[in-house]
C-alpha cells in the first residue's frame, strides 16, 4: 500500500539538464548572433561597456532573487532607484558629500522598510503592494525633482568613476554582491531559512524560523540595494532625474526568472541567476548595438519576459500539469 508521491524527481533526467542549461545555451547563441551581425560586439572594449550596463541589474538581481526565494516580491525596484537618486543628489548638493551618500542609502532603506512592513507585518499581497509603492515612489521623485534633472557634484563623479584594473569599482562591488549572495544562500543557514520560508511557510514557522522577520529583512536589503544602484546609475549617466531606473525593474525580473526562480518561492540557485543576468545584459546591449529602436527593444524585452516565465514554470515542472 505504498503511496509514492507522484511527480518526477527534480534535478535528474535529460529534460531537466536541458532546461537548466537552456539559458546558458541561449546566452551563447545571442553572443554569436550579435557578434556575427556586428564584429565590434565581440571586442574587449564592448565587453567592458556591457559590463558597465549590466552592473545595476546585477547588483539588484541577487538580493531580489533571495527575496523571491523566500516567496515575496518587490516590483517597486526602479522607482526606488529614481527616488534615491533624486533625493540623494539634492541632499548632496545642499548638505555635502557624506550627507548625500547617507541620503541615497537612507531613502533606499526607508523604501525597503516600508515594503517590508506592509508585506510582512500587515501580511498584504506583495505584488499589489509593491505596485502601489512604486507609484508612490515615482510620484515622490517627480515632485522632489520638479521634473528637472539634478547634477551631481564633481567629487561624486570622481569617486564613483574611479577605475581599478580597468574596471570601475562598481563591477567589483557587483562581484562582491554575487559572492555574498552565494555564500548566504548556499553556505549559510540563513539561506536554508529562506528556502524553508519560501517552500513551506507554516512548516518553517513551526520549526522556529521567524518567517516574518526574515522577509522584512530581505525587503530592507532590497531597498538598500536600490539606494546603491541609485548611486551607480547617477554615476553612469552623470545626472539624476525622477525617471531614473525606469528600465530596471523588468530586466531584473527577467534575469531572476531566467535564473530558474519563480514566484512560488523555495527554489533557485545563484549560479543560474548569474547566467540570467548576463543573458539579459548582453541582450539589451546587443540590441542597442544593432541600433534597434527603443520601441522594438521594449517589444523584445516583453516577449522575453513571457518566455522566461514559461521556462521558469517548465523547470519547476508546473507547465502542462493537470
Amino acid at each position, binding site marked *: 500500500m505504498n503511496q509514492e508521491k507522484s511527480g518526477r524527481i527534480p534535478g535528474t533526467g535529460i529534460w531537466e539538464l536541458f532546461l537548466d542549461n537552456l539559458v546558458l545555451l541561449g546566452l551563447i547563441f545571442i553572443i554569436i548572433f550579435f557578434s556575427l551581425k556586428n564584429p565590434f560586439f565581440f571586442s574587449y572594449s564592448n565587453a567592458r561597456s556591457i559590463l558597465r550596463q549590466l552592473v545595476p541589474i546585477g547588483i539588484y538581481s541577487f538580493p531580489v532573487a533571495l527575496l523571491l526565494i523566500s516567496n515575496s516580491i518587490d516590483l517597486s525596484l526602479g522607482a526606488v532607484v529614481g527616488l534615491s537618486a533624486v533625493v540623494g543628489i539634492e541632499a548632496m548638493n545642499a548638505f555635502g558629500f557624506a550627507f548625500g551618500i547617507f541620503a541615497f542609502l537612507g531613502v533606499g532603506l526607508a523604501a525597503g522598510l516600508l515594503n517590508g512592513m506592509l508585506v510582512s507585518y500587515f501580511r498584504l499581497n506583495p505584488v*499589489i503592494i509593491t505596485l502601489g509603492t512604486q507609484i508612490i515612489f515615482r510620484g515622490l521623485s517627480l*515632485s522632489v525633482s520638479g521634473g528637472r534633472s539634478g547634477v551631481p557634484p564633481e567629487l561624486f563623479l570622481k569617486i564613483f568613476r574611479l577605475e581599478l584594473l580597468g574596471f570601475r569599482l562598481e563591477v567589483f562591488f557587483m562581484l562582491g554582491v554575487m559572492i555574498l549572495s552565494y555564500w548566504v544562500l548556499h553556505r549559510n543557514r540563513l539561506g536554508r531559512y529562506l528556502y524553508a520560508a519560501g517552500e513551506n511557510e507554516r512548516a518553517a514557522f513551526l520549526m522556529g524560523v521567524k518567517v516574518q522577520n526574515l522577509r522584512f529583512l530581505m525587503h530592507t536589503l532590497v531597498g538598500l540595494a536600490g539606494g546603491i544602484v541609485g548611486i551607480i546609475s547617477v554615476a553612469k549617466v552623470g545626472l539624476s532625474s525622477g525617471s531614473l531606473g525606469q528600465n530596471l525593474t523588468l530586466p531584473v525580473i527577467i534575469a531572476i526568472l531566467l535564473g530558474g526562480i519563480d514566484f512560488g518561492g523555495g527554489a533557485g540557485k545563484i549560479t543560474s541567476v548569474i547566467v540570467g543576468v548576463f543573458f539579459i545584459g548582453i541582450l539589451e546591449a546587443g540590441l542597442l548595438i544593432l541600433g534597434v529602436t527603443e520601441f522594438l527593444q521594449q517589444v523584445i524585452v516583453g516577449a522575453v519576459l513571457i518566455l522566461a516565465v514559461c521556462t521558469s514554470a517548465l523547470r519547476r515542472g508546473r507547465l502542462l500539469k493537470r
Partner: protein
Amino acid sequence: MKVKNSKSAGQVNSAFLTKTRTKLLDFITTNGLLVALILFVIFVAVVKPSILKWSSLEGIIRQSTDIAVVAFPLALLVIAGSVDLSLGSVASFSAIVMAKTALVYGFPIGVFTGLSVAVGIGLLNGILVGYLKLHPVVTTLGGLTLWRGAALLLTNAKTIGMGAVPGWILDYGIGLNTLLFLPVHFYILTVSYLVCWTLTHKHRFGERLYAVGGQEKAAFLVGINTKMVKLLAHTIAGFGAGLAGFMMFFRSGAVHGTDGDGLEFRALTIVLLGGISFQGGKGKMKGVLVALFFITFLRYSLVLLRTPLYLQHMASGVLIILALFMDSLLTQRAEKRGSGS
C-alpha cells in the same frame, strides 16, 4: 472584543454597544465607499461649488468611461482569480491598429480590426494563464511592455489617425453632440456595466467565475471547465481593453502610442477599492461602479483644486494600498467569524 467596562451592570450595556459597533462596522465596510464618495462630494462642493455644474459632471462621466470599460471586465477577471496588468498597453496597441487600418480601409473596418486584435491578445493571455498555468502577474507584465513597445514601434511615437474618424462620429466623441441630452459615453458606460453585471450576477458564467476564483479545486471537481472559464475571462478583459482603445480614438480623433499609460493600474485600484478581493471569488460589481465614480471624482476634483501632479500620482498608490488593507482586514474578520465548527 475587549470589554473595558466593569462587570455586572456594565456588562449588558457593553454587549449592546459592541453589537451596535459591529453593525456599524459592517455597514461601513459594505457601503463605506459610497459613504466616502458622498462625503467627499459634499466637501468639494463646499470648497468649490463649480463642481456641481452640469458641464463638470458631464466631463466626469466622459472621463470615466475609458477606465470603466476596462475596470468592469478586469473585476470579472479578478473574481476568477486571475489578473491582467497589460490592459492599458493593449488598449493603446489596439487603438493604433484601429487608426492605421481605418486610414486605409475606413472607420468600421478599422474598429473591427482593432477590437479583434485586443480580443486576440486577451485570448493569448487566457491560454498562457489558463491552459499553460503561467503566473498571471509576470506574464501580463511582459505583455505590458510588449504591447506598449509595439504601439510605439508601429507609429514611431507619433500621433496618428487624424481624419480617420468620420466627422459626425467625432462630434459624439468630443462631446459636441449628445444623444438624448447625455453624452454617448454615458450609454457606453451603462451598457458595459450592465453587461458585466449581468454576466457576473445573473448569468451562469458568473457563478462559475466565483467558483473558480474562490476554490478552484472544488470548481474542478463539480465539473466546471476551469481553464475555459479563465480563458473567457481573459478574453473579455481583452475586449474591454479594445473598447478602451476605441474610446481613446473616438474621443479625440487621434491616437498616440503612450495613450492609456497606467490605465491598468488605475483600473486595478478601482477594482480593489470596489471590494473585489485579489484572492478571487469575492466581490460585487456595484462596488466597482461606486469605486469608479469615487476615483474619477477624486481625480477631477484634485485637478480642480489645483493639487500638484505628483500628489495626484501618489494618491493612486496610496489608494491601492488602502484597498488591499481593507481587503485583508475583511478577509481576516470573515475567517474569524464564519469558520464555525
